[in-house]
């Protein structure tokens, strides 16, 4: 079945540094959805990408969907302590297939 792999598993950055997490699949994905889960919280939907090569921005967050629709990335510019949490990519085929997530720690 469809699987998505995420790297890195953990990332520690100094506040103000940039952060990127990558999501890869061996099969073509119909879409990619990104979710953020704060410690002790539940996943919260961030964005959905559908088109090949699509790029979307939300303030300091930039999301990309690869040309072959097999990979995606989330880049955060100038991290803040409020960015702390685990970021999951997922493929939505009716059911969400989550990657393992990248846990971001930000040192103030």
């Amino acid at each position, binding site marked *: 079945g469809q699987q998505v792999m995420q790297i890195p598993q953990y990332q520690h950055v100094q506040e103000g540094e940039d952060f990127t997490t990558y999501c890869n699949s061996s099969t073509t994905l119909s*879409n990619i*959805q990104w979710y953020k889960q704060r410690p002790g*919280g*539940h*996943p*919260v*939907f961030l964005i*959905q990408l559908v088109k090949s090569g699509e790029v979307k921005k939300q303030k300091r967050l930039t999301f990309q969907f690869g040309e072959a629709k097999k990979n995606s990335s989330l880049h955060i510019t100038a991290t803040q302590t409020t960015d702390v949490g685990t970021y*999951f990519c997922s493929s*939505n*085929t*009716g*059911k*969400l*297939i*989550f*990657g*393992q*997530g990248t846990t971001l720690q930000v040192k103030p």
Partner: protein
Amino acid sequence: DAGVTQSPTHLIKTRGQQVTLRCSPKSGHDTVSWYQQALGQGPQFIFQYYEEEERQRGNFPDRFSGHQFPNYSSELNVNALLLGDSALYLCASSLRDIQPQHFGDGTRLSIL
């Protein structure tokens, strides 16, 4: 506008017991999905309900069953509980199946 609500928030059971978890979807949503999230892992899809029927199922044994009611609320039942069933159980709702899903706060189930 209430979001997804789940009950109870925490539950402690012993091996072999049965448990029922409940979920009310976000207003306007008709599809409910259940996920199991072990500590430090991503959520794993259990099953999805739409129009009171199970539409998709993940790789979980028959001990896991569910139900959706006419008002779109849903229950997750787990029989013959095992220690490995200890996890956060998340309910998510959406309008149809491929739209973004809205998650509840989850039920933390501990098996002793």
